[in-house]
């Protein structure tokens, strides 16, 4: 499969990339790892006239701590996330989720920024970022921040404007001893989730003092499940509270029927993933 022709650009600074995007307009696209965009181009579902490759922009790479935030450069690859001891220690749900994305070769080129910016409801990191209440930094002529919980509008439609590049993901560092889990049901390695659930919670004196639930691939956007999160908070994470959370989460799921199952089946899988993720997260509270 041969994509349509394009002119290729490889800037070395964010400002240069933003300027190119501004000058070239709607016919330009940025490419990170390319594992979502290139298949679309091969199918000619996308045919940008200009491709702006971000691989040489050093300021977009790497993970660092900044105050109470974990700052992830958009071009940090998924493999680099897995290898990061800092991530494993301070925000292990990210490592757990990234390990379930695609396969080793894809993770070597696939990036955090691409995964969250693309707006594909099947991507795994958006729901995790919603559970973590991460903020995306969008750079255009000026820079602005949008919460992951407000970023996704519809399938492939996000708050990102045509002249903006998602340059950073800022994750508030979860408190020490927090519980977490990302559980994903998939048919095989490399598949999108039939349904998946991300849970981050804290427990203090036997009561859940904070809970946040994100859901992958059960609607045309990733879902932050506010009511499910509220059902867990201030409970002892007993069966009644967990069942209430699962029910609230299932109520907002609207998965498409596809090769992964009927809408009803995928909703039940979503509920099951959430129930197990809550139990796993609780078991990990230190």
């Amino acid at each position, binding site marked *: *499969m*041969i*994509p*349509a*022709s*394009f*002119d*290729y650009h*490889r800037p070395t600074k964010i400002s240069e990339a933003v300027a190119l995007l501004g000058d070239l307009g709607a016919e330009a696209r940025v*490419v990170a790892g*390319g*594992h979502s965009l*290139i*298949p679309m*181009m*091969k199918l000619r579902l996308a045919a940008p006239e200009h*491709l702006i*490759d971000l*691989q040489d922009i050093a300021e977009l790479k790497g993970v660092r701590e900044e105050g109470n935030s974990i700052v992830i450069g958009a071009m940090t690859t998924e*493999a680099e996330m897995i290898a990061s001891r800092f991530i494993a220690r301070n925000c292990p749900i990210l490592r757990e989720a990234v390990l379930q994305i*695609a*396969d*080793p*070769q*894809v993770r*070597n*080129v696939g990036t955090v920024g691409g995964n969250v910016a693309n707006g594909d409801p099947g991507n795994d990191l958006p729901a995790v970022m919603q559970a973590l209440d991460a903020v995306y930094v969008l750079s255009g002529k000026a820079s602005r921040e949008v919460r992951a919980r407000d970023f996704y509008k519809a399938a492939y439609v996000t708050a990102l404007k045509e002249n903006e590049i998602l340059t950073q993901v800022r994750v508030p560092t979860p408190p020490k001893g927090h519980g977490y889990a990302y559980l994903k049901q998939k048919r095989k*390695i*490399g598949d999108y989730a039939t349904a998946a659930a991300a849970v981050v919670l804290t427990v203090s004196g036997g009561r859940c003092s904070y809970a946040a639930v994100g859901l992958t691939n059960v609607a045309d956007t990733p879902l932050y499940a506010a009511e499910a999160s509220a059902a867990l908070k201030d409970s002892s994470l007993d069966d009644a509270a967990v069942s209430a959370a699962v029910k609230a989460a299932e109520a907002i799921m609207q998965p498409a029927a596809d090769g992964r199952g009927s809408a009803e089946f995928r909703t039940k899988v979503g509920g099951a993933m959430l129930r197990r993720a809550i139990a796993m997260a609780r078991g990990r509270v230190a």
Partner: protein
Amino acid sequence: MAKMHVKMTVNGREVEGLAEPRMLLIHFLREELDLTGPHIGCDTSHCGACTVDLNGKSVKSCTMFVAQANGAEVVTIEGIARPDGSLHPLQEAFRQHHGLQCGFCTPGMITRAWRFLQDNPAPSEEEIRFGISGNLCRCTGYQNIVKAIDAAAVEMAPKKEAAE
């Protein structure tokens, strides 16, 4: 559209060529450089038959434009045997353990395993299976592929000095 000048190191050799940016790396390797070891299987980044090593990492060359690989260091299955032509221990192990039947996935499988064993020289069976999870084989059921990689890891391990 204008062709661009592309330069990379492939199997230790500097190569140059003119290519449209949209040319996929796999096509550049196979059609411009005559390196037909890496195969085009699914053409959708699932099967791993096109796996090559790029700057020290396994990648699927069907999902990368040659423009993105400009300046890179690439190793294909053709670069894995010893310079004298004798087989690399992984290739020998695939032969000994019947790690292939039709052979279509084998170049990608070995190129992937070659990098995997450099990253993890003493893997468990589970780690091997996870390490090659981006490579599909429709013949073997993977058993003998896993055995071959395990045997190669043992063969390649630094030998302990015999006896104290």
